[in-house]
């Protein structure tokens, strides 16, 4: 359900930006903290684009890991649990460097519909 809602949002944003040009591929960047399952997102994408003017439009998903920087020891940690802590000194005073991305990176268009 989550992925369906997000696909709908991706579609709306792409449609608003593409100005009616045929879109062949869409690339998104999604952070770990967004809890998106790439396979579910692709499935939702196929379902929503089928029969629309975006059918056969490919979806590229770049998963961005959650990385924190420690304010105590300056080390960076890539998280494998959603626990905001430094793996080096175990400090909880950390800053999230990446992992909340929810970005439409780019889309590919063909200039002229033939």
């Amino acid at each position, binding site marked *: 359900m989550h992925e369906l*809602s997000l696909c709908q949002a991706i579609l709306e944003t792409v449609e608003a930006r593409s100005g009616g040009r045929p879109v062949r591929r869409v690339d998104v960047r999604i952070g770990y903290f967004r809890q998106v399952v790439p396979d579910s997102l692709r499935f939702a994408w196929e379902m929503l684009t089928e029969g629309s003017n975006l059918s056969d439009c490919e979806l590229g998903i*770049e998963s961005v890991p959650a990385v924190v920087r420690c304010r105590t020891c300056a080390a960076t940690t890539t998280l494998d649990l959603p626990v905001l802590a430094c793996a080096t000194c175990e400090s909880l005073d950390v800053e999230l460097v990446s992992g909340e991305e929810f970005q439409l990176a*780019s889309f590919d268009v063909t200039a002229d519909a033939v």
Partner: protein
Amino acid sequence: MGRFHRHADGTGHDEEHEPELRSVGDHSGYPETGRSRVAVLESILSENDRVADANRRLFAAAGLRAVNLMSSPGAGKTALLRRTIVELGSDVRVGILEGDIETSLDADRLEGLGAAVSLVNTGDGFGGECHLDATMVSSGLDRLPLDDLDLLLVENVGNLVCPAEFDVGEHAKAMVYAITEGEEKPLKYPVMFRAAEVVLVNKVDLLPHLDFNLNLFLSNLSDVNPGATIIRVSARTGEGVADWCDWLRSLRNRPPDPADQ
């Protein structure tokens, strides 16, 4: 490799393009097809956010503050809202925008308490939307006397995932968590628990009857959202509801347009 294989941030992923490249020859074939890449680098939710900003301007013009109240199904949002409306009394004029996939059952429970209630059924969305987005909220605002309100409480659809993603124009996000849901919920649903500025820990009247470890829950919550305000409440006994209402009243001190914060 051709420039068409680069993201704007410099990362590449050439292999993913191979299947379609076969149909157009090698990479140099791209320009002949008239294909080009448009870098966007903006939020996937930017269309929603545009409508949310419009909602926010409406709220600012009416001089009201809005709170997006979220939880899993059955955590006690509606019961708590009933208590909240009564506790706030006549000095805070409350409007409720009630999101439900189907039925007016929750909206019916909120009638007759002195608050203006607008129901948005989300069942017309694709398969029944599992959250309120900015456009759905916008459609429900027509039925509320915004100029006569001090506080708008948006009761989102019961769901611990999707509602957290969609800004509806609120000044603050709050969530209701019931201790019957178990201690590990913040770790399983970090998106929601990170989004909430206030976490209402509901059903605390059940503490003596459960094996629930409150300190473990609070530690898990702190792991994902160290800055959250925590208010222990019971919608059944009314415990903590005054504290929650004090927090709601304190929203008056925030600028009506959050952009001015």
